């Protein structure tokens, strides 16, 4: 399976039209580096603009918690203070005190006209400003999910202090890096991914493992070390198990599959095919049957090969199978979908009707008229679709 598949899945979300969204007022707060030796206090004026103050913890003082109220501890040293015209969506602080990265803009993520992502050094100088148009080609940007306010491109990031890189991971998985020295935009070498598996921030380790899985990197030794560490958070453990399973190392598949049905982590289910290849198909069918998040995206990775399995699920009465057939553009499944419209299960009938109407258009008018004449649980919906088939 090629890693480009991940990007393609997002077309589904993007073509579904722009979602409405709301943002809470931005809150002043504090963000520390993973070691707790440096931190940034973000204060605000107005809705979402303000100052960012980079602070060094006093030598010998206890580490600063990762997040907290916007306070500077007594005795700590202020290194720089800068005005941020837009509140950042996220902040990453260098563990060497080199500076901090402000990621994108809160309230309007991924605005392609601006360059809100920046790195501010310890002297308060902005080393670079970039926007998503600098990082990704347009066809890739247009595949990111969108809402009224934002383009949801951002999955996560880390600062690679050793190489002087800000590594930005988009939702389609293939990262870009920006040099914190001179603002050059670079592809991320495999070595940087390997290095990130030792990053002090567990979120960075989890992200790097995701990239490693998508790139099929041979980082088994590092992944095994992570698996052997009982202190590692669950998300990191599961991803390390996924990488080891992908590499064919026995004994880790169960640990990876344990993450398949987690409500708060649908990445695992959506990427089962990257780890297990074709063996993922029955698992995804099972996940779709149980309504697990990410199952539709995972099934899509198999393309049209997944159509027979989705049809079987539809006959079984699983409404999500109708949605999966629609995602797959399975026009050949129209007779199967139309039969499901006659189901006494209203949820199934409704899902099948929506999928059939989108895939079949005016072609299915005679069948819908026949179904209406015979009577179904979704007669009102059929009348609506009949009025709109020729749009």
């Amino acid at each position, binding site marked *: *399976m*090629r890693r*480009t*598949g991940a*990007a*393609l899945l997002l*077309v*589904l979300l*993007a*073509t579904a039209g722009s979602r409405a969204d709301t943002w809470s*007022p931005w*809150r*002043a707060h504090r963000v520390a580096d993973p070691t707790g030796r440096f931190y940034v206090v973000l*204060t*605000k*004026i*107005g*809705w979402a603009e*303000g*100052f960012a*103050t980079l602070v060094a913890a006093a030598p010998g003082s206890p580490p600063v918690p990762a997040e907290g*109220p916007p*306070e*500077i501890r007594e005795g700590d040293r202020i290194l720089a*203070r800068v*005005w941020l015209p837009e509140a950042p969506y996220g902040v990453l602080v260098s563990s060497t005190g080199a500076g901090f990265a402000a990621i994108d803009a809160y309230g309007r993520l991924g605005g*392609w006209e601006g360059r809100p992502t920046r790195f501010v050094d310890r002297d308060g100088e902005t080393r670079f400003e970039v926007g998503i*148009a*600098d990082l*990704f*080609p*347009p*066809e890739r*940007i*247009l*595949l990111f999910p969108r809402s009224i306010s934002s383009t949801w491109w951002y999955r996560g990031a880390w600062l690679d202090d050793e190489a002087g890189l800000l590594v930005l991971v988009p939702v389609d998985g293939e990262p870009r890096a920006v040099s914190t020295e001179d603002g050059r*935009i670079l592809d991320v070498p495999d070595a940087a991914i390997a290095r990130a598996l030792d990053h002090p921030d567990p979120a960075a380790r989890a992200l790097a493992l995701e990239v490693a899985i998508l790139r099929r990197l041979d980082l088994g030794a590092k992944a095994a070390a992570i698996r052997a560490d009982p202190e590692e958070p669950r998300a990191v453990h599961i991803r390390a198990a996924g990488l080891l399973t992908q590499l064919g190392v026995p004994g880790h598949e169960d640990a990876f599959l344990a993450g398949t049905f987690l409500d708060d982590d649908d990445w695992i289910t959506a990427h089962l095919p990257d780890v297990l290849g074709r063996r993922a198909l029955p698992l995804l069918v099972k996940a779709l049957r149980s309504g697990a998040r990410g199952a539709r995206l995972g099934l*899509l*990775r*198999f*393309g*049209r090969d997944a159509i027979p399995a989705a049809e079987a699920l539809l006959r079984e009465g699983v409404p999500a199978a109708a949605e999966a057939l629609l*995602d*797959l*553009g399975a*026009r*050949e*499944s*129209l*007779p*199967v979908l*139309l*039969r499901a419209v*006659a189901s006494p299960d209203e949820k199934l009938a409704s899902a099948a009707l929506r999928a059939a109407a989108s895939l079949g258009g005016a072609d299915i*008018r*005679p*069948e819908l008229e*026949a*179904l209406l004449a*015979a009577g179904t649980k979704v007669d009102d919906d059929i009348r609506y679709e009949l009025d709109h088939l020729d749009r």
Partner: protein
Amino acid sequence: MVPMGIRTALLLFLLLAAACAPAAPPANAPPLPLPPTKVEEEAWSAGPEGPDPFENADANAILAGLNDPAPHLRYRAARAARRRELAMPAVLDGLAALLADPLEPIRQAAAEALAEAGDEGFARLVAATGAPDAGTRRAVLDALTSSRLSADWRPVETLPARLREPLLAAAEDPDPLVRRRGLNGLARIRPTDDGILDAIAAHFASEPEEVGRWLVGGVARLGSLLGDRIVPLLESPDPVVRRRAARIVDPATAGYDALLEDPDAVVRTIAAERLLEAERIPERRAAEVQAKALRDADTPGMLREVCERLSGLAGRRPGDERWRRDGADLILRALDKAQRRTGADATAVNRSLLVFSPPPRSELDLALAVLRSDRFFAGSDEDSYGPLWIAARDAAPWVGIRPSAGEALVRSARAGAPDRGAAIRALGAAPAEAPGARAAIRAAFDDADPFVRLDAARAWVARGYGAGMAIATVADALRSGDGRVRWHALKAAADLGSAGAAFLPRIRRLAASADPIEHAAATAALRAIREEDR
């Protein structure tokens, strides 16, 4: 509760301290005390929705705020002073002191408050034009040239001499950003004396790009006041100066058309844009010049310049059908090529592609962007995706308008491509015939997938290529053991109209099916064939 006497004494102390404060802190002053206290942070964090600490405060409290160590209180106090139009000398002195604040937003707030505080405030601003810090001078020039002058562009002789002189001085400032403000300020007051106009024209020709590019708007506003001062710059040996001049000089000026053949690609794009805007050349000609400029732009900087002009061109004609048909596609294809030439890091090209695809960021753009991407046509069996069918469907109406839409559909209809059936259906439904469509559809008759063969049959008929080839495919599919294939064959038979009469016995048998879906499809096909027959 603080006793009233103590509070009064505190205010008096603050007033006295403010009155004794120097106009600006010395250059080596220690950093302002940081950080704000927690209480201050809460007020700070409240934002405009929360209580403004100076909303009902008296002048003394505002004055105290101007000198407060907490930056957010200084900022808000300066805003309050402006809002309340306070002109007490102590407040004006406090604002003047903030002109040297280390924080830019506070300097700006103070300068704007002074600019609106009558003659006394204005005098303090003018006095600060000689401040040692360039940041202070910039904030002051901003306030002088925007607040004071934007409402009425009076001839310079009607302005106080004290403003004319600071602007002239700023035009010669060592700091380029101050110079830029000074020159634009001079331009905004529409001077009529030759000395100032000559100075502006000289700077326009000689300033480095970091200043010069920002003078274009200001100088353009001078219009006929400049006379012929800029026209000779069209022949400057320096292409950067020619670019500036091309933006200013009236495109009706004799010889302006020759810029379309300028050796510099950016000059040509500017000339094409302005001549098109003045309706002196047609869309097609402008598009050809722009596309050639894109091909010729051989450095990243040049490409960026050309793309910046393109973005403006697209933005001014968002709904123009003629432009889209005659020009935009040509440029879009040139941008596509430029992107391939320069790689994914060609930011300027990427931005132009995003801006230039009308209508911006629609579902159609998504569809075309998907179709344009070579990643989707890599030919690997491992490539798997679903929603190309949506892209193909949405691209169909654009065949005949944008060549890229037809090219992409033909490319994705090739044998072995995933979702090739969707592309073939789109080629059949398109309002115009895409080059290569007929061959692509014909080739699909031999596809291994029966659904793709039926898609080909229906597209063939829809395009009016005749029923002959379709009949054999449909007849074969009607005999299939797979009910799904038979259902699609019935749809294709209905498309054939009277030519489908050959299948009537078979379709009648299917109409007797117990399966209501097959029965409905067969009945509809019979009706279509017979109606066509009548």
